[in-house]
């Protein structure tokens, strides 16, 4: 199967602090890949380097064979960062249309209206984003992430702060896109989500891959314990 993401000997230092020592992995087209680790283990740093926010100290990070360029992406990407927000003073529709235009949608307005209908927010289209509840704003952020049928979906702690309805909606959307052949990189602390959704995973510790493979391979290497137990065994109390 073709690799949509390739990370080769990635190293990342901020000043004298080494975040990633030497990391290599790949994400295959159409799979759901779990990037796991304790807080501060370098998961978000790796994604940000993959998307060009950081210049790696060493190695290379490729999306569909090339470094990611937002102006000319080799494949369409949907990214839901851990720190996320939209233009609070603009209307729901204006937010969706603007991002739709930037992502090259042919009819961003039509897409936005269709999406708002799906998430039952069609009556809020002309409301300023700041007037919406937290849960409603999350639905709009999710819409921005999945517009234009991305071939690679990157979700950094996507369910963090999501209410149960939005969590279910997100799972539905991930499943839907997965069926269409979208690859997903998922950063999460919920091991039940990983077991349920992911084909393969990588556990990051001290800047290197502590475990890497299919979920069953990782479990096999750890006496068939649950992923949650494996996580606790690896990271001990450092996440507290």
């Amino acid at each position, binding site marked *: 199967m073709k690799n949509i993401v390739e990370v080769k000997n990635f190293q990342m230092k901020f000043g004298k602090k080494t975040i990633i020592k030497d990391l290599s992995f790949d994400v295959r087209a159409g799979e759901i890949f779990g990037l796991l680790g304790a807080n501060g283990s370098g998961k978000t740093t790796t994604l940000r380097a993959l998307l060009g926010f950081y210049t790696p100290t060493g190695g290379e990070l490729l999306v569909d064979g090339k470094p990611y360029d937002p102006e000319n992406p080799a494949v369409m990407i949907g990214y839901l960062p851990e720190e996320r*927000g939209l233009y609070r003073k603009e209307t729901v529709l204006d937010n969706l249309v603007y991002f739709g235009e930037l992502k090259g949608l042919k009819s961003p307005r039509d897409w936005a209206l269709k999406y708002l209908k799906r998430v039952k927010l069609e009556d809020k289209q002309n409301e300023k984003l700041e007037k919406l509840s937290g849960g409603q704003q999350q639905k709009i952020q999710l819409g921005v992430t999945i517009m234009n049928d991305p071939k690679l979906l990157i979700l950094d702690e996507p369910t963090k702060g999501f209410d149960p309805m939005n969590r279910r909606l997100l799972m539905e959307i991930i499943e839907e896109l997965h069926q269409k052949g979208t690859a997903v990189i998922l950063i999460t602390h919920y091991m039940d989500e990983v077991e349920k959704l992911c084909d393969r995973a990588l556990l990051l510790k001290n800047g290197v891959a502590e475990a890497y493979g299919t979920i069953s391979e990782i479990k096999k290497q750890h006496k068939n314990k649950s992923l949650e137990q494996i996580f606790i065994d690896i990271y001990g109390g450092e996440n507290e």
Partner: protein
Amino acid sequence: MSNSLLKVVKFEFIRQIKKPSFWATIILIPLLVVGMMAISFMTSGGVKANPTLDENTKVAITDEVGILPKEMPIVVDYTREEGKNKVIDKELDLYFYIPADFKESKKVDFYHISEGLEIFNNDGQAIKGILNQAVASEFDVVDVLALTGQFDVVDNKLTATGEVSNALGKAIIPFVFLVCFFFLITLFGGRMLMTVVEEKENRISEMILTTVSTKHLIVGKIIAMMLLGVIQILTLIIPVIVAVIIYRDNEIVSGILSTIEIDPVSIIINLALFILSVFLSIGFLTYIGTITPTAKDASQFIGPVIIGVVFPLYFMQSFMATDPNFLVYFLTYFPLSAPTALMLRSAFGTLSSPELIIGLVEIAILSFIVIRATVHSFQKNAINFGIVLPKFLRRR
């Protein structure tokens, strides 16, 4: 222009123009700035509504008609050229020449050195009082003219080198650019700063920078602000043009219109200076937006930057002087004040060509550096949500 750059420009332009606050400030701020400039202008000698003669004023009159008694100490027998030269040599402050054909022409010529951008200099009207008091009790036509003051005083402003001065006519177009510059900075500088901070404060930057490059995002915002500035300038200029058309027969309006000098080279130079100055000043504010974590933190920098930009205005008198002092030179090349200082000196005609070239090159290089630094800083800080200002700069 790149596709994504155009989309950023369109979005930023439309969202600002939809705001009622945009239209409120677009009308109020010009009124404030015009008021401020008018006060500065009036206190700097631009308008001399009343004669300011005193015992130290050196006055002489050549009377070719014989209205004034020869024994009056200020009556001299200079020719017109001799009187004019004495003004240039500063032996005289004011020189009046009553020509032999005064009865027919009903005009007295008045010579003095121009004091900067004089619109009205009523020192010349002093001749009317002098003649009024001097005429004999037996009137003839000439005396009646002298008594009633029904004649014109032709104001011949001279430069220090003796040429006829048209400082006001030359200054009008540079001043129009200067006024437009102030409106753009005061109205849109703060807006620009806030729109950059907004991307970070509302955590938009990480989402948006996967769809558009930092360069296109920042430059797109700056271009959108400049387009909004064009609207601002039009809302200012259109009423002025309408007023000029309506009052074109008014003495002052027609007088000013007749003095305006339209020099294409000067217009191009001042336009270049204006565009580069806008880029530099907005670039400074945008840069601040990239290094401050919140709108609250950023807002404290708007005032000082604007004051730095308009600082040369407080020294209008120094800028009007034909021999610039150290302060004028310093403000001409200090990055924050350079745009205003260069525009002022261009308006007052005290900027030599080499200085103008140095100034333009300096602003162009600085603009390039500041915008590059802004893009770099935004790239670096856009996702650095934990950025903290030094303690002494934090708002309490």
